[in-house]
């Protein structure tokens, strides 16, 4: 394994990402099906900021305090993670305001009575009113509109800076990431708060950023190999392996602070408010890094292989040593090798799996005519 690590470190891996694209597609497809199913059956657990709920206001008197209010809620078996308890001050009078999700009428009355008792006031002194969402439908509409416009402008930018196939692949990968992140929220019934939405947007940004970096490498290699007959699958494979270390490093660098927020911040230091935000980010960063390698790039390869320029070489993949050769010299292994690959392909056989581990424990040897 040490050999594998050091090859990874030196950027000499020859993983056949493109050839194994179906693995990624199937995995993602399954996850997306689960997401859609879960969204239809149990939907999303929207927090008070989206759904609105109930607000109690109690005068501060007797034993009433923010902590006491929380105790009363806990005594009534209400989860206090996302309940907002605040003190309102106006001149000398103080009131505690408690905002929480919708409650059955019976519970509502029980709590109202408990609050009144604690504040040594009559039930009528405890006001109960419904509260609207702070995050109105209007905000959602605006955000969605903004996102669509963002997709459009970004597609145009990528199409102009790179090409339209890359734009399409990048957008699909981005939608995939958000889809899976939303799915995690739906399946595990995590509460969606405005912070979650912000986390999802961060994921979108990260996923797109990551994809662009990978595509930039593909574009680079595209120019590099433009003189020789190399299939697009090879270009994708070579690029993937070249940026693999970058992708890993960046993901580690991005995940470390998030993990720290999750484990230390919400776990050790007890800032529960951070937990779901960090969780959403963690899931998103992971899918973002995964999708630029397993979704965006293979999609690009599929689209590109259908184009006129690459159609003739469709399906040719240089594997193992051949890929390493391609990576280092910028030219494919001689015609004989490709012919062999072609016959193997036409015979329906998979190109013989090269024992990469043993062959690549040292940098590839110079090509010798007499080899084999």
């Amino acid at each position, binding site marked *: 394994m040490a050999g594998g690590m050091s090859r990874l470190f030196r950027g000499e891996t020859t993983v056949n990402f493109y050839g194994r694209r179906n693995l990624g597609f199937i995995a993602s497809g399954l996850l997306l099906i689960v997401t859609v199913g879960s969204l239809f059956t149990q939907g999303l657990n929207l927090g008070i900021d989206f759904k609105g709920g109930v607000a109690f206001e109690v005068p501060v008197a007797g034993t009433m305090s923010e902590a006491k209010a929380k105790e009363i809620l806990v005594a009534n078996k209400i989860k206090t993670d996302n309940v907002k308890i605040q003190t309102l001050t*106006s001149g000398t009078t103080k009131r505690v305001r408690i905002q929480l999700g919708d409650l059955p009428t019976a519970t509502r009355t029980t709590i109202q009575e408990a609050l009144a008792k604690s504040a040594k006031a009559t039930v009528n002194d405890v006001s109960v009113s419904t509260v609207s969402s702070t995050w109105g439908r209007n905000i959602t509409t605006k955000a969605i509109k903004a996102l669509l416009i963002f997709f459009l402008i970004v597609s145009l930018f990528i199409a102009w800076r790179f090409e339209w196939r890359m734009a399409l692949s990048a957008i699909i990968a981005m939608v995939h990431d958000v889809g899976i992140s939303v799915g995690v929220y739906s399946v595990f019934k995590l509460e969606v708060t*405005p912070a979650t939405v912000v986390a999802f*947007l961060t994921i979108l*940004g990260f996923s797109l950023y990551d994809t662009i970096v990978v595509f930039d490498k593909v574009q680079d290699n595209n120019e590099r190999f433009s003189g020789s007959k190399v299939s697009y699958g090879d270009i994708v494979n070579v690029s993937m392996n070249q940026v693999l270390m970058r992708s890993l490093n960046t993901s580690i660098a991005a995940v470390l602070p998030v993990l720290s927020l999750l484990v*230390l911040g919400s776990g050790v230091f007890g800032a529960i408010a951070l937990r779901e935000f960090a969780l959403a980010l963690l899931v998103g960063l992971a899918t973002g890094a995964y999708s630029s390698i397993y979704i965006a790039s293979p999609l690009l390869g599929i689209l590109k292989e259908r184009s006129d320029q690459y159609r003739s070489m469709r399906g040719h993949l240089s594997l193992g040593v051949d890929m390493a050769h391609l990576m*280092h010299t910028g030219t494919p292994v001689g015609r004989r090798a490709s012919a062999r690959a072609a016959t193997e392909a036409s015979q329906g056989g998979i190109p013989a799996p090269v024992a990469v581990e043993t062959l690549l424990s040292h940098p590839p040897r110079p090509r010798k005519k007499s080899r084999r």
Partner: protein
Amino acid sequence: MTRRLVLSLVAIVLLAGGTFTANLVAGNHPALGLDLQGGASVTMTPVGEVDPAALTVAVDIIRQRVDSLGVAEPEIIRQGNTIVVNLPGVKDQQQALDTIGRTGAVEMRPVLKVAQNPENTTTTTVVGGPTTTVKGATTTSLKPASTTLPPPAGGVGSSRTAAVTTTTIPAATAPVDPITGLPQGQTVLPGRKDGLLYLLGPAEATGEVFSNDSSAQVDAGSWVVVAKLRSGAAGADVWNALSTKCFAGGADCPTKAVAIILDGEVISAPTVQTPTFDNGSVQISGSFSQTEAKDLARVLQFGAVPVKFDTPTVQTVSASLGEDSLRAALLSGLIGVLLVLLFLLFYYRLLAIVVVGGLGVSGLLLWSVISWLSKTNGLALTLSGAAGIIVSIGVTVDSYVVFFEKLKDDVQQGRTLRNSAARGFERAWRTILAADTVSLIGAVVLWWLTVGSVRGFAFFLGLSTMADMIVSYFFTRPAVLLLAKTKLFNRGRVLGVAKAKTSEAVA
């Protein structure tokens, strides 16, 4: 070449350090959001029966007003039949009231005379004129107190002397004594910013003649306000009656100008350019600044909402999360960033000191900008905002990784570090630029088109992306290029990669 690199390095470090110190000296520091430090809670109770739909519109408009104050992520909730606005960090309750407490009865009156306000000698700024660039209020030296006032307008067009005419005259105008002797319906009101006094005829239209989508736009290079009229008797008819009268310039509207009034202040007094506005849209132009145009548009939007509120009540509201949450976020975030640095140190060895420096510079820059905007624009950091910034640090580390990986490639292929540094940066910069542009597009679009916390997110995304680009070009590039020339960095395995033997590299 070396001199320019050193210059760039010194300049960016000085800039970051300088702005940081300046903010520190000025006592600016990042303000905290509602969840972390609480703020003011303003409760607005509507008068009488209110249509729930109208209340929703009112919420939207109040949200816009509050959002236009900055990026403070306010909370706006309908609680029962009231609207509750929570503003972060507003210690001065009166300020919160001033911000959203104006009740927003907008009315339109013909301008009879204009004069310099004796109490306010600031120089006149131009008041917007309509349809084409015409200065609405010229500084004729007529005093409202003058006895040559025109006779009171007859019943003409006073079809809508609605209930809103109860506007009280602010005490500021009191020195002009004979006002009290003015004919029925006439009044003298001050301009909001222009230092003028207006003698006005009876209110003939309310802000409700316009639909609530007035907007500030750019027309032929200058800012104008476009307002749409409601059709029929509720809007266009009333407005056209007023505009026809004023266009004619008769005794009941000698100046040909219509004053737009909000809460006893003349916001703008445009001159009418056409007798009727048949296409249902009114354009008000003048030498507006962007802020003035937007302000006027907002006044019109607000006036269009048929909800009147009682005097709002203000309460201070405590933080819902509190200090320890923030401390936990900051502490764990810092530990996270430290781990990232350790990781990079392990991976890129000595080069990681560039990352440390770069993160330091961008940290100082971000802190400065956030502090400064907290002071000037009411920006406030929520818990998720603070956490988001910490996360963005992890993401911006990517630009170093991209650069260093390219360097490593080159060194491995047998180039010297000195050689590959400039080349590597050029290639990495292209990548960084492409990726950061996409992030910036996202930030700008979301900032522009959304409200609330999404807007806050867009703001910080844009900020950290800009910092990334600036630091990459003005700090990382010169730092690495200079370090690559030192002996230390050309000795052996600085990058953790041995220079490949030539035979292998060409393999």
